């Protein structure tokens, strides 16, 4: 069996309505799942940068990269798994906080360099950033404090030097 690998790509695209559908089509054609995706405009507002993570064997991942590169509105594709880059995601997590656990929750948030954004009726919303593995660990840690729900942004990433 071929090894399953994770791939993070940075895709610079023309900021048009159907570009995302075309990229998604490349994945669905080969039954590949997009694990996470995040997108926003760049310093040139006519362009959008999409950071996308996926998993699969290397051969198929390379084929997908080629297919994406072949789409008309794609400006550039960089495989961030092959280029030194910083990869982060953001977690918004809602915790049920009581008098009993409040101190320990606060300590944990402080240790993880989190930020409390909202405190409403015993529900706290905390913002924390980290790489994908950190985020999984953080969710695990909060599980025991009555973690209510969370939202992850998906990975965003930037090459360490200009590619």
């Amino acid at each position, binding site marked *: 069996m071929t090894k399953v690998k994770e791939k993070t790509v940075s895709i610079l695209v023309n900021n048009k309505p*159907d570009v995302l*559908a*075309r990229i998604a*089509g490349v994945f669905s*054609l080969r039954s590949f799942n997009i694990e996470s995706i995040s997108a926003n405009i760049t310093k040139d507002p006519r362009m959008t940068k999409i950071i996308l993570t996926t998993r699969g064997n290397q051969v198929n991942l*390379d*084929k997908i990269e*080629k*297919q994406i*590169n*072949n*789409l*008309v*509105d794609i400006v550039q594709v960089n495989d961030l798994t092959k280029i030194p880059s910083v990869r982060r995601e953001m977690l918004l997590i809602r915790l049920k906080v009581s008098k009993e656990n409040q101190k320990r929750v606060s300590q944990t948030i402080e240790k993880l360099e989190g930020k409390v954004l909202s405190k409403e009726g015993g529900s706290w919303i905390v913002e924390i950033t980290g790489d994908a593995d950190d985020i999984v660990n953080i969710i695990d840690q909060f599980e025991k404090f009555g973690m209510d729900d969370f939202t992850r942004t998906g990975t965003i990433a930037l090459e360490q030097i200009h590619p």
Partner: protein
Amino acid sequence: METIGADIIVKILQEEGVDAIFGYPGANSLPLNDRLLDSPIRHYLTRHEQAAAHAADGYARATGKVGVCLSTSGPGATNLVTGIATAFMDSSPIVALTAQVNTSLLGQDAFQETDIIGITMPITKHSFQVNDINNLSYALKQAFHLAGTGRPGPVVVDLPRDILAAKCKCPNEPYENLAEVSAKDIDDPEQLEKIAKALDQSERPVLILGGGVKLSGADNEIRVLVEKAKIPFVTTMMGIGSISAGNGYDFGFIGTHGYELANRMVHQSDFILAVGTRFSDRSTSITHEFAPMATIAQIDIDPTSIGKNIKVDLPFIGDIKETVTALLPMVSFKERTQWLARTKNEKTDYHEKNPDNGCGPAGHLIRSIQNQMPAGTIAVADVGLNQIWTVRTWQTGAARNLITSGGMGTMGFSLPAAIGAKVGMPDRDVVVITGDGGFYMNIQELATISYYNFPLKIVVINNGHLGMIRQMQDLFYGSRFTTCELGNRVDLVAVARGFGIEGRRVLIDEDPKEGIDEMSRVNGPYLLEVMVDPESYVYPIIPPGRSNVEMIFGKAV
């Protein structure tokens, strides 16, 4: 008259050299149909939109220019889909113009609204929905550019009715910065030298020519390469006729219905140079047993076609004509006496043992037709037994005189595609070779042919069956025949006559010469119905799941 969106379209079509459009109108396309009336562009009304798309495709395949079809929104647009997919699979350049409901109605399930951009996304090279009159000229220019350059393919331009009717000024500025695909990779002369070296060092090289060779117009460069390095060549089905077969290096086409010797040579080779082919499963059968001893080099303009289906040792991305021109001086003159003698002997042997090349009486029929028709006649084959009989028999003297749906295998393709071929090449004779099954699928086009008096010669090889299905059920499903019989109660000559087309029925076993003679003499369209035994199959064939060297020559007992 005030200038409207439709005028911009007419202007750009003319700038792009479009002389013919195949289409079918509807309420939403009328602003454009109306303005086409005053232009020199001829609009041919087919009897079904699917036929319009195939006709545009046939036009493109026969001429090398971009073919154009036009439909209304909704069902008009969806009826084009099979034709667009057919063009996509064989890299045929067409621009499909689809009318759309007014922009204010988009997304409201308006009458005859359909999301044709969404529907065609996986079967187009690119597509545009024009929602702003200011983007119309750019989108159209871009559509023609994308369809015809790089690896050609279909492009859809969806045109809401209010955009077609919007008042505007005709643009006069030049169009710059048209986007390219397949042009992002740089050429690499070192890689070409590696390919040349591997070719020089090989003892049993084989060249595989795909449909890309004729798309690139590289027939002459490839012929020089073949004769300089003395490399025998095989083709894919789409590559048939890429270069003239007359120089003795041609060993036929590979794959499921290909030549046994061609498949065996690829299997035995130590070096393969594949040019303009994606190694489709029809050519390779099971990939891990394909060319097991060979180092494989591949040249293609489309990066996604490289390594798509098999592992390639020496890839090169580039236009075939340019690449082979650059490769030629790097390659040495070679004799390869042993390899050539061996392959040529086997070829002579094969043709002595298989006088009709495995096509039986149908092969004889098709050869007689070609002999009787003028040189340069274009054959348009349908899909099924008739297709394999035709591609194995028709002698292609030029790159674009055999047209068939290879990748998609679209039954019903031949009749409308022949209309397009004839419109594109009015001075050439065009023969349709179809089975009864494929003929029924676009039989309404007899009305188009009759109306415009296109002098097409239509040969229906009628075995009363879906012949290839019958053959597969006979060979691989224990002769349990189901859903393959069409019957023979239909008098196709009477049907043709009803459409105003002359014809005659002949039996293949008695001499069909009289019918062929009459067909070649008649000035207008003509239908020749040739009755064939349903057990007349095509051999050899590769059973499903087997490799290219496991061809069978008859029914296992």
